[in-house]
């Protein structure tokens, strides 16, 4: 039996004695793109970080390709949130992308021209070929996000875990990321994204995991995104909001003067 890219069994995570994830069970299927969706504070980023061992989990089992992460690290790439680093750091776009190769290069050895070439190729793949030498503070937010994606690309991994890649990016970047997701999938790769936009989730992703401290539902987008499931995930507020939007769009609906 081939094992799943990522399987999590009854994962519990607490932060400052407050439960953030409660008995989370999930399976990521190979060769598909999966979105993790839920309201603010639902534990979406926490789920990724706990899976990667970046924050301690209280209990639970996390298996990548049927093994603990330590044994299969080279098959997994992580794209942190863009806001998690200081973009005034004195490095160029090429330097950042080359960081994806550090583990492969090994301790104490320098980055050689071969690696710089690989970094440049990854940058070209996200449409930033001419920005390789630019200092990262001189890039737009969307370009910075693409630099992060290029760094994950350079790792040549099979499973990509991305934390909010679509958050506040320009249209060009959005298209570039979508093209990238499609290409990774065509090459047999698996992608998991924390996503915040309910409007686009069905269009961008194959599978959806609805999360609000617990996993509410998971499976193909069309099956999971039911009003019932969304209400369970977001509570009553979303439904009210939806009705209000519907109301306003109707002809003859009351408008603000």
């Amino acid at each position, binding site marked *: 039996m081939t094992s799943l890219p990522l399987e999590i069994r009854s994962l519990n995570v607490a932060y*400052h004695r407050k439960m953030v994830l409660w008995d989370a069970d999930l399976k990521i299927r190979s060769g598909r793109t999966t979105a993790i969706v839920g309201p603010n504070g639902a534990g979406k980023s926490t789920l990724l*970080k706990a899976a*990667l*061992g*970046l924050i301690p989990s209280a209990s639970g089992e996390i298996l990548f390709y049927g093994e603990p992460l*330590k044994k299969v*690290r080279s098959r*997994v*790439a*992580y794209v*942190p949130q863009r806001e*998690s*680093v*200081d973009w005034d*750091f*004195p*490095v*160029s776009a090429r*330097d*950042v992308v080359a*960081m*994806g190769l*550090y*583990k492969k*290069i090994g*301790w*104490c050895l*320098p*980055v050689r021209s071969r690696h710089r070439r690989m970094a440049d190729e990854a940058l070209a793949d996200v449409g930033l070929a001419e920005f390789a030498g630019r*200092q990262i503070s001189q890039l737009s937010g969307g370009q910075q996000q693409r630099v992060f994606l290029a*760094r994950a690309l350079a*790792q040549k991994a099979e499973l990509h875990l991305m934390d909010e890649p679509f958050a506040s990016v320009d249209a060009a970047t959005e298209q570039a990321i979508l093209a990238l997701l499609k290409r990774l999938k065509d090459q047999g790769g698996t992608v998991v994204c924390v996503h915040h936009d309910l409007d686009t989730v069905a269009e961008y992703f194959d599978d959806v995991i609805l999360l609000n401290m617990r996993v509410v539902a998971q499976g193909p987008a069309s099956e999971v995104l039911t009003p019932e499931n969304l209400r369970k995930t977001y509570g009553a507020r979303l439904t009210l909001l939806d009705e209000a939007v519907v109301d306003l769009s109707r002809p003859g609906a009351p408008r603000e003067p």
Partner: protein
Amino acid sequence: MMWSELDTWIVITGALTAMACAVPGVFLLLNKQSMLGDAISHAVLPGLAIGFLVSGTRDTFPMLLGAALAGVFTGVVSGMIERRGRVEAGASLGVVFCSLFALGLILIRLAADHVDLDPGCVLYGSLELAVIDSASVPRIAWQSGAILVLNLILAGFFFKELQLAAFDPRFAKASGIPAGWLQQGLTVITALTTVVAFESVGSILVIAMLIVPGATAMLLSRSVAGVLLWSLAVALCSAVIGHLSAISIGPVFLSLLTGHGNLGSLSSAGMMAVCAGLIFFTIFALAHLAQRLFSRVKEHSVTPQA
């Protein structure tokens, strides 16, 4: 002004110390842990004193060991308080290093009753006295040279790992590079460097040597390697200019200011730190001026087309 062989050694030792501090200083700065450098340089004091009390001599090794342990203790305990106790990072460091510093002062006072360890020397250093040595190369000179070489070798070997751990520790950990251990290592190296430096510049001025060259270099370069090289250059310049002004223009200037007669020469270590600060402010001002001029030129070149 009179230049003697001692002056040469003062400059060499001061420069080596400043450069040795600049190397871990740059990485502390990139880690946004400048405060940790400050904390360590104060917190090594009880370590020094305990090493001294236990061994009973002013041998370097027990003092180094004690100080390194105290440095690591500071890093670990303040990290723990920050994670567990919902105390802000700066505050938890402040709590730990101030208590340790105070404890160190008490211990040194205690030790000073028995043997020759002067609190003043520990706090302010004694560059001028330390270079007086019967050996052809003063002990303090080759000691600071050795720690500089060690720091350069370590920075060279672990350059890319240190860079990644400073820029994006989460990604480093996720890709299997132990960012936490690298930062602990940096803490240990900072503590060791501080101990060697305290003899020449004192435990208080070490912080100037740790942070100012790196902060200045950040204004001058856009790559980590560049920052490292510039910080070495700034450290070297501060030492040379600092000592020169301590024995020449400094006293003249001060006697003019205060109206007192001949004040002799000033503290070289103090002047070196002052010079480092002056170099920083000069470059800071120039960088802003250049930026303003540049943007004005840009405006002028754009307007005709509009």
